[in-house]
C-alpha cells in the first residue's frame, strides 16, 4: 500500500481507451470513444443522461466487453477486462449505491475482501483496525472510528468508507459516479478534500457529475460525451460553463413530434409550496387542460419524486396539491378514480406484472369498469382490451401474450394503455420513451397529442431534451430538488435547459 509519487507527468497515461465501440441490441451506446487518464489527475466526465457515461465506466471496470477498441493500462493493452482483472489491475469504483454491509464495522468493510491474517487462519483484528486508521488518516478522515458499525455513520462518512475500501484493494484509478448527489452540502468539502489528497498521492480519478461548478473547482481536465461519442477533452482552465453546456447538447431537432394544436383550458392541478421527504423543496406549478408541462433536470434532481407524490406515493412534509379544486388523493387507486394517473419511470418493476398476460395487466386498474355485481365480465374485458390495443397500436395484438415476452416499446404501451383506460383527466408520464424503439416513440407522442386535444392535461418528466422541446408547452427545470427556472416555448433551447439544470450554488442547499 505504498504511496505513489507523482513523477512521470505527462508521459504515459495511467489508463487509455482507444476507439471503443459498444452496442446493445443494435443501439450504439458508444462509438469510437477515446479517453485517457493521467496519474495525479482528476478527470471529469460529463454528458446528459444516456450519453454513454455509465457504459464507459462499465467497460473500464470490466462489467461490459467492448465490441471494438482497446484498453491500455500501465502500458499493457487489453481487448477487454473482467471485474476480477480490473480490480487486480488497480481500478476501483464508488457508485451511488454503496456496497458496504451496514451491520459490520468500518474496518471490517474496508478489508472485507482480504483482511490481514494471523496464524491459524484467524483475522488479525488489531492490525486491521490499525491499517484502517492509517488509511483513514491518510485521507484526512481520522475522526471516523474504524470499530464503529457502518450503519451508525452518516451518508458522507459511509461514502468515505467506500472510497477507503477501493484504496484497500490498491486501486490506483478511482472512479466516482456522482458522489456529490447523495451528500448534503456540508459534507461536500470533506469529499473534495479527500479527492484532492488522492490526487496529490498520484492516483488517477474519474469524476462523474452533473454539477458543473464542482468540476471547475475540482477537475484538471474534462471530457464531454454526447450520444455515445466523445465530443471534446479539454483542460478545465481553458473552458467555462457555457461552453461545456454547448458541447453537451446542441443537436438538430428532428420533426417526429406532432405539432401542438390544443387549446388550453382551466387549471387541473395546482401545486403550492410542496416539500417532499427532505429531498424536494418548495415546488410551485400549475397544469391546465390541454397543456403539456415538461419537467427537466439531470439525475436525482427530484422529478420522479414529484411525479410519484402527485399520485400519493411520496411523503409530503408540507405544502399542498390541489386537483380539480380539491385536495389530491393520497393513494394511486383513489387518484386514478379522480382522474389523475402516473406512468412510472421503471415499467418493469413498477408498471407491469411481467409474468401475466397483456390482458391481465391492462385490466388491473380498471376492474371496476368490467365488474358487474362483483363478478368480472369476460366479454366486457375483451372489448376494452381490444379497444386499447388498437388505439395504441400494440403489435402483436394477441392479448394473452405474457408481458415479459414483449418488446420494451410494447410494454410501455401496455402501461400507457392500462392507465388511459381509466379515463384520466391528467396523465403524468415519467420517462415516457426510455429504452423503446423509434416507431413506438412516435406512436406514444401521437397519443399524447390526442390527449391534449381532448382537453386532458399532461405532465412529462424526461431526460431527453429533444423530446421535451418537441412536445411541451412549458418546461420546468429541476436541480437538486428545486425548480430553478421555467421556460416558455419561445425560449426552448437545449442549452437554456441544461444551464438551468446544472447551475448550482453550494449555499443553495439546506442542511439536513
Amino acid at each position: 500500500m505504498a504511496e505513489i509519487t507523482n513523477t512521470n507527468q505527462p508521459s504515459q497515461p495511467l489508463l487509455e481507451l482507444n476507439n471503443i465501440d459498444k452496442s446493445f441490441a443494435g443501439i450504439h451506446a458508444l462509438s469510437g470513444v477515446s479517453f485517457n487518464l493521467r496519474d495525479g489527475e482528476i478527470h471529469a466526465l460529463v454528458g446528459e443522461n444516456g450519453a454513454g457515461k455509465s457504459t464507459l465506466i462499465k467497460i473500464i471496470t470490466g462489467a461490459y466487453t467492448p465490441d471494438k477498441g482497446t484498453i491500455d493500462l500501465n502500458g499493457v493493452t487489453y481487448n477487454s477486462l473482467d471485474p476480477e482483472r480490473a480490480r487486480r489491475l488497480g481500478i476501483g469504483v464508488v457508485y451511488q449505491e454503496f456496497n458496504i454491509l451496514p451491520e459490520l464495522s468500518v474496518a471490517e468493510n474496508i478489508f472485507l475482501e482480504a483482511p490481514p491474517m494471523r496464524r491459524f487462519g484467524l483475522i488479525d483484528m488489531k492490525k486491521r483496525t490499525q491499517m484502517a486508521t492509517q488509511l483513514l488518516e491518510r485521507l484526512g478522515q481520522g475522526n471516523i472510528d474504524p470499530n464503529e458499525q457502518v450503519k451508525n455513520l452518516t451518508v458522507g462518512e459511509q461514502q468515505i468508507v467506500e472510497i477507503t475500501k477501493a484504496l484497500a484493494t490498491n486501486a490506483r484509478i478511482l472512479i466516482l459516479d456522482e458522489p456529490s448527489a447523495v451528500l448534503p452540502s456540508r459534507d461536500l468539502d470533506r469529499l473534495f478534500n479527500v479527492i484532492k489528497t488522492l490526487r496529490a498521492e498520484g492516483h488517477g480519478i474519474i469524476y462523474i457529475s452533473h454539477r458543473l461548478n464542482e468540476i471547475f473547482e475540482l477537475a484538471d481536465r474534462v471530457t464531454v460525451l454526447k450520444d455515445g461519442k466523445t465530443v471534446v477533452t479539454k483542460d478545465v482552465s481553458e473552458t467555462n460553463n457555457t461552453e461545456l453546456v454547448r458541447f453537451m447538447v446542441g443537436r438538430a431537432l428532428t420533426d417526429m413530434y406532432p405539432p401542438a394544436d390544443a387549446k388550453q383550458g382551466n387549471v387541473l392541478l395546482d401545486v403550492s409550496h410542496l416539500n417532499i421527504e427532505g429531498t424536494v423543496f418548495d415546488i410551485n406549478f400549475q397544469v391546465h387542460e390541454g397543456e403539456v408541462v415538461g419537467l427537466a433536470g439531470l439525475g436525482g434532481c427530484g422529478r420522479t419524486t414529484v411525479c410519484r407524490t402527485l399520485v400519493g406515493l411520496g411523503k409530503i412534509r408540507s405544502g399542498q396539491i390541489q386537483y380539480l379544486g380539491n385536495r389530491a388523493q393520497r393513494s394511486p387507486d383513489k387518484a386514478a378514480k379522480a382522474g389523475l394517473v402516473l406512468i412510472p419511470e421503471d415499467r418493469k418493476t413498477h408498471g407491469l406484472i411481467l409474468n401475466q398476460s397483456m390482458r391481465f395487466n391492462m385490466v388491473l386498474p380498471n376492474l371496476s369498469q368490467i365488474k358487474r355485481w362483483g363478478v368480472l365480465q369476460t366479454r366486457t374485458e375483451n372489448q376494452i382490451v381490444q379497444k386499447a390495443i388498437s388505439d395504441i397500436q400494440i403489435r402483436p395484438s394477441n392479448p394473452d401474450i405474457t408481458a415479459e415476452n414483449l418488446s420494451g416499446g410494447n410494454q410501455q404501451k401496455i402501461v400507457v394503455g392500462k392507465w388511459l383506460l381509466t379515463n384520466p383527466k391528467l396523465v403524468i408520464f415519467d420517462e415516457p420513451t426510455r429504452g423503446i424503439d423509434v416507431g413506438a416513440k412516435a406512436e406514444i407522442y401521437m397519443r399524447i397529442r390526442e390527449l391534449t386535444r381532448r382537453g386532458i392535461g399532461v405532465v412529462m418528466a424526461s431526460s431527453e431534451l429533444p423530446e421535451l422541446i418537441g412536445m411541451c408547452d412549458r418546461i420546468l427545470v429541476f436541480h437538486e430538488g428545486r425548480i430553478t427556472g421555467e421556460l416558455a416555448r419561445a425560449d426552448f433551447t437545449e442549452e437554456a435547459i441544461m444551464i438551468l439544470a446544472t447551475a448550482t450554488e453550494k449555499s443553495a442547499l439546506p442542511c439536513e
Partner: protein
Amino acid sequence: MNSIPVKPNVFSRFTTLRANQRLVSGVDWAGKWAAPILDILILILAGFIAPAFYNPENLKTVGIQIAILGVVAIGQTVVLLVRSIDLSVGMLMALGAVIVVQTQEGASIPLALIEAFLTAAAIGLIIGLLVTKRQVPPFVATFGMMVFIQGARLAYSHGQASGTVPELLRAISINPLGGFLPAALVVWVLANLAVLFVLKLTPVGRWIYAVGGNPAAARYAGINIDAVVIGAHIFCSMSALLGGLMLSGYIGYLDLGLGADYNTNAIAAVVVGGTTFTGGRGNLYGTAAGVVLLILLLNLVVVLGLPINWQLAMQGLVLVAATALQGFRQFLLNR
C-alpha cells in the same frame, strides 16, 4: 498487497450455468405438468402392481383423503400465490377439531362451529399482521404460530382426547351422497369451484396474482397489499379448519395426532402442482393434481403393504423434489 485469485471449484459449474432457451422452457414445462403426468402414470402402474388399489372401498378412502388434503391445499395455494406460506395448518386442523368436539359437550353445535371459525380467522389475522406489519418472514411467523397453537390445543383439551364427533362432521365427510360418492369429495369440488371463480373472475383474484407477481407494481396500481396478504392468511386458516373438521368426521373420533402430516403434504401438493414460492404463479388445477399425486403415492405404500415409515419418507421426498424443481425453475426464469 495481494491478489485475489479465483480458483475454479466444484460449485462454479453451477453458478455459470447458461440458461439456454430450451432448458428454461423444459424446466418450466416440467414444473407445470409434472403432477398431472405422474398422476396418470401412477394410476396405470397401480393397475399392474397393486390391483387392490381399484377396490371400491380403497377408492372411497382415497377419494376422501384427496378431498381433505385438497381443501387444506386450496388455502395453502392462495397463501403461496401472495408470496407467503403457512406452516401452522396441521396444528390448526387439530385445534379446530378439538374446539368443536369438546365445546360441544353440553353446548350447541352451531356455537362450537362459530367459535372454531372465529378462532381460525383470528389466527389467520395474527399471522397476516405479523407478516405484513412486522415483516416477519412467513416461515418463522407461521412456525411460531404452530408452536403456539400446539400449546393452545394442549391447554384447551388438557391432554385428553374426549368427546364424540358431531353428526354434522360426519355428514360432510364420510356420508355417501347418492349412495356412493363421499360427501367430502363434493365439499372439495365445491370449494375448488368457488375459489377458482374468485381467482379468475373477481377483482380479489386479480389482486392476489398481482401482489404475488410484483408487489411494487401492485402498489403503483393502487392495490392494498397488506389487506390482500392478511385476507389470504385468514382464508388459509379457515380452509385448514374446514379440513380439520372433515378429517375428524372421517376418522370418527378425536385424535391428538390429528393433522400432523398435513403441513408437509399440503405444501408438497401445492408446490408439486406448479405453484412457486416466489408468488404470482400457479393455479388450483395444478394443486388438485398435486394433491392427487401425493395421496396416490401414500395410498400405494399402504396397498403394497410397505411399512409406515415409507410414507413419511415419501412425503419428505416429494416435498424436497418438488421444491428443488420449482426452485430451479424459478431461478432459470429469473435469469
